[in-house]
């Protein structure tokens, strides 16, 4: 069965600093990988996704993520964090089998941005 681990429950960074959120997955084949962001009291918004091809994917709001098969990781990065980036971030993995039971989410990483 597929699984996702986000080892950092909470991360605090200063505005303008760089950011990396970690995500490790477990899946037997090439996975589909996603990062979602959730602002307080809101639904989840898709930041970016990886299906195949270039292992460095660009997303919205200046985020990017790199798929590293050897490390089973899909870490999210941003070179300079803005105060509006404070939110909870979820990594997710989907099987390529086309099953409706698709996405498995990590437990999330709460990001706090200091002024």
């Amino acid at each position, binding site marked *: 069965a597929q699984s996702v681990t986000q080892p950092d429950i909470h991360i605090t960074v200063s505005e303008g600093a760089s950011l990396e959120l970690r995500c490790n997955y477990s899946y037997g084949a090439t996975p589909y990988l996603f990062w979602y962001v959730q602002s307080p009291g809101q*639904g*989840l918004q898709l930041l970016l996704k990886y299906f195949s091809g270039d292992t460095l994917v660009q997303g919205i709001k200046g985020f990017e993520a790199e798929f590293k098969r050897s490390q089973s990781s899909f870490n999210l990065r941003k070179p300079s964090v803005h105060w509006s980036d404070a939110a909870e971030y979820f990594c997710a993995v989907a099987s390529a089998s086309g099953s409706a039971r*698709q996405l498995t989410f990590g437990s999330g990483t709460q990001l706090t941005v200091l002024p």
Partner: protein
Amino acid sequence: SQTIHQWPATLVQPVGSPLSLECTVEGTSNPNLYWYRQAAGRGLQLLFYSVGIGQISSEVPQNLSASRPQDRQFILSSKKLLLSDSGFYLCAWGQQGPGYTFGSGTRLTVV
């Protein structure tokens, strides 16, 4: 374009009362539909999903049920709410490719 609507946004209900949360999708047909719950300090838990009208798959045995009376309508219900049913409920839809689009959620507080 496709949109997903979820209501109400906030709900406070007494223990033992019934529940009905509604989710509708526009601009698409035959979507896969999902209900998730997010309890305080916890991740996303898949409750139910549906691949078509009247077809419901339950992921976690609990006090809740789901129904899909129409192609683009997904309803989450309970006959008698428990305190432990409090949480943030999210509806989502997906289709051929993997990945979902989420609604804005319903904050349920059972008192």
